[in-house]
């Protein structure tokens, strides 16, 4: 239990015995959380541990099946975020929800516009309040600036202002540092520090980065496999201790590697990809990368450091500004995506719902996706429905996708089963090189082990895998080599036998560069 609560002061937030089930999966079970007022309280856990589910419960985005929520001592039922906001809870989402073409001021007041008289917008009053808030936060930019011209760190500040403007006393920040560079992280915590110490607000901070949690937070609650396993403070633990709490004690074992130089199945030379905004710095610069037969090359990096763009470039979804891509021995720099896929490339996309699945379509159409060139599944220009369905059943059985049948639409499956289906589909083409982005993201532990086993088995049979993951244990456990991407470049190469999450962390934040061998 949390120590040092002055008696008489109610907890800012207290969750007791929270359960949340989704069809086919229990996302949270028996979650208990006690947040002291006026503190920064970190919630840490691996991807898929249930952090976001928990925070959505607290913010009223869905209702828990069991358990109670108390805010400042009073029991609450949140039917929607509106109820949570009324209870002075505010949430800063991981993905910014700002209107680019509106100004800072307009964004902040959007949805709670101050009015004067008969519905006339009182911009002067809004501006006065916003300036007050900005001053107390120590932020300094012109409220009339369009959000489009702000940097990522500043946009996040706007999100925080938005929440404060609505009078939030308790702020939830969902992985706020995932998109920030180290300098901005420091500024963010400076801001949060003011909110907590000067104004007595409470911050709930979701993260999986142990460093920042240990440096900046007052209390730390660890979530593993859907439940809260411990609450501690930075004084009482260290990285090792937290890492063990997060993953349980048995980390995957890096084993079964043989020294050899088999043929290269994926080669990137001097790859450069343009950034999202024209004129901005390139998203990927001078990347050289090789994946050999029966080799897993892990790519570590904080999200948004060019991994996504690198994958898109390998797939041929974005043009290269410079460099070349070679797949299974042939130059594919100018080939279209289908040609690359046909030559033995497979892709487990970053976001299965946005890039991997047709949610309203039955599973058998989902397993057909991208494989409608396969003569085994087609007859001339027509889809062979019978064989496509049989093929789908094979994939479902082999990858242990839990579903009543292949006729069920994909949205009816839990996240883990959706992911197994995508992995199964991508492996069904018997690829030579697999680009796997977060192959076990948001997947429960059992499914994670199953996917890992399949990837290892395929690797042993000769598949080359480029593994992009935010899960450092996954990277260390699966990879034969690990490279680190920072700011669009590959800044280090490490031997997983010597790599620890902490060491990787220092490379990923750009504190260290070079070879870790």
């Amino acid at each position, binding site marked *: 239990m949390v120590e040092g609560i002055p008696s008489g002061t109610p907890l800012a937030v207290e969750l007791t015995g929270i359960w949340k089930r989704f*069809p*086919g999966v229990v996302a949270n079970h028996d979650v208990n959380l006690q947040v002291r007022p006026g503190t920064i309280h970190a919630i840490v856990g691996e991807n898929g541990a249930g952090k976001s589910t928990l925070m959505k419960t607290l913010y009223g985005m869905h209702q828990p099946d069991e358990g109670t929520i108390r805010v400042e001592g009073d029991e609450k039922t949140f039917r929607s975020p509106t109820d949570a906001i009324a209870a002075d809870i505010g949430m800063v989402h991981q993905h910014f929800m700002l209107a680019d073409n509106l100004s800072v001021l307009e964004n902040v007041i959007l949805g709670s516009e101050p009015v004067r008289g008969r519905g006339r917008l009182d911009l002067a009053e809004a501006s006065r309040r916003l300036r007050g808030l900005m001053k107390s936060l120590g932020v300094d930019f012109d409220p009339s600036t369009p959000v489009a011209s702000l940097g990522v760190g500043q946009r996040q500040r706007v999100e925080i202002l938005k929440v404060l403007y609505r009078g939030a006393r308790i702020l939830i920040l969902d992985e706020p540092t995932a998109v920030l560079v180290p300098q901005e992280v420091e500024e963010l915590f400076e801001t949060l520090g003011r909110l907590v110490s000067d104004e007595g607000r409470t911050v709930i901070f979701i993260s999986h980065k142990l460093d920042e949690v240990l440096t900046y937070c007052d209390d730390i609650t660890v979530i593993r496999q859907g439940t809260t396993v411990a609450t501690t403070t930075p004084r009482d633990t260290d990285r090792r201790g937290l890492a063990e709490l997060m993953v349980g004690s048995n980390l995957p074992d890096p084993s079964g590697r043989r020294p050899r130089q088999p043929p290269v199945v994926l080669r990137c030379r001097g790859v450069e990809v343009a950034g999202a905004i024209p004129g901005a710095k390139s998203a990927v610069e001078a990347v050289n990368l090789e994946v050999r037969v029966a080799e897993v090359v892990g790519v570590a990096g904080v999200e948004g450091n060019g991994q996504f763009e690198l994958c898109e470039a390998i*797939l041929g*979804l974005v043009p290269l500004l410079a460099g070349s891509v070679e797949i299974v021995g042939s130059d594919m720099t100018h080939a*279209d*995506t*289908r040609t*690359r*896929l046909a030559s033995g490339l497979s*892709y487990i*996309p970053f*976001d299965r719902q*946005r*890039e*991997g*699945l*047709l*949610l*309203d*379509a*039955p599973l058998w*159409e989902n397993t*057909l*996706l*991208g494989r*409608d*060139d396969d003569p085994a599944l*087609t007859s001339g*220009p*027509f*889809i062979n429905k019978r064989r496509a369905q049989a093929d789908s059943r094979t994939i479902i059985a082999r990858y*242990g996708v*839990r*579903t*009543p*049948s292949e*006729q*069920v*639409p994909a*949205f*009816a*499956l839990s996240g883990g089963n959706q992911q197994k289906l995508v992995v199964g589909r991508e492996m069904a083409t018997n690829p030579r090189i697999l680009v796997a982005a977060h192959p076990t993201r948001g997947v429960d532990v059992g499914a994670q082990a199953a996917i890992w086993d399949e990837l290892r088995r395929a690797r042993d049979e000769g598949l080359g895998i480029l593994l992009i993951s935010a899960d450092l244990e996954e990277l260390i456990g699966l990879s034969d080599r690990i490279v680190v991407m920072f700011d669009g470049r590959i800044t280090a190469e490490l031997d997983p036998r010597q790599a620890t999450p902490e060491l990787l962390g220092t490379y990923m934040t750009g504190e260290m560069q070079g070879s870790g061998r």
Partner: protein
Amino acid sequence: MNRQTLQRTAVTAGSSVLAVFVALGISAIVLLITGKDPAKAFSTLFEAAGDTKVLQGAVNRATPLMISAAAVAIGFKMNLFNIGVEGQMRVALLTTAVVGANVTLPPVLHVLLCLIVAMASGAAWAGIAGWLKVKRGVNEVISTIMLNFIALSLVAWAFDDFFREDENTTTVLVKTKELPRSAWFPDIVDRRLNGMIMVAILVLVVFWVLVWKTRFGFRLRASGANAGAARATGVHPKRMILVSILISGAFAGLVGMRALLGDVHAYQNNLAEQQGFNGIAVALLGRNHPLGIFFAALLFGFLGEASGKLQLEDIPKEIATIMSGIIVLAVVIINEAVKRWNDRRIQRRAAAALEEAPA
């Protein structure tokens, strides 16, 4: 058909039928407010359904609606909203009227040529919107609306300045040169039911096979359902957009052919007016599915044809138009509600099925 497909079809059809009944109810209220007897109106409509002549007229009216709904629906399948069917149809009408009147061919071939010209010119006009979207990122809703205005004016001007036949004094309306008899699409029942209904059914069958049975159609539906996923699996988004807009335009070109080849046999200013727009409503009611479109078009055709009978009973014939409108609104609302209910039902069932048989 397996059980799931059957259930899906039943839910889809059920929600459309429900919408029709809700619309009937609302129409009854409208009638009551205006002091008319809804029972009399409905019994008139019901009796009209037993009248062969009314039914023939209904099928005749349904013909262009089926085709224009197919044109709209193939766009919808790809998440494209082609509002430009009307304009594409109009361009095709004048082009076909002029080309058809100025060539000499044996009967069947002449009709075939006219249909091909209609499809090509409709596709060409739609292709402008496709090109704008692919090359310049112009939203097709905007461009097709604008192209409708341009098509209407352009066709009216070209007709007036180049192609109208002034010598033709036998009728009040100005027309283009009349098509030779070899280009006339034959009637099934003389002056009452034109054979173009067969072409309309063929269009629906082609639409069904193309979209639901072929690899191309699978990619089209995948692109419409999730553009991101289609792209990541190597479907060329721009090519798919262009091809589906061209097919939509080709269908649109055929919409006016019942009026041109099967009825008037020359272009005149109000020929087939509104039939391109009405297809949008039919596609919505028919849930973008060929079978649904078939029945929806028949229903709309019937309401249009039977409205004359209402007038005889001193009930304003606009009530039929109002009813069509309410049906479409009801469909949109009820479909969404039913979809949500059904999605939850499927999710619950999937979860329940798994708990019975743990892996």
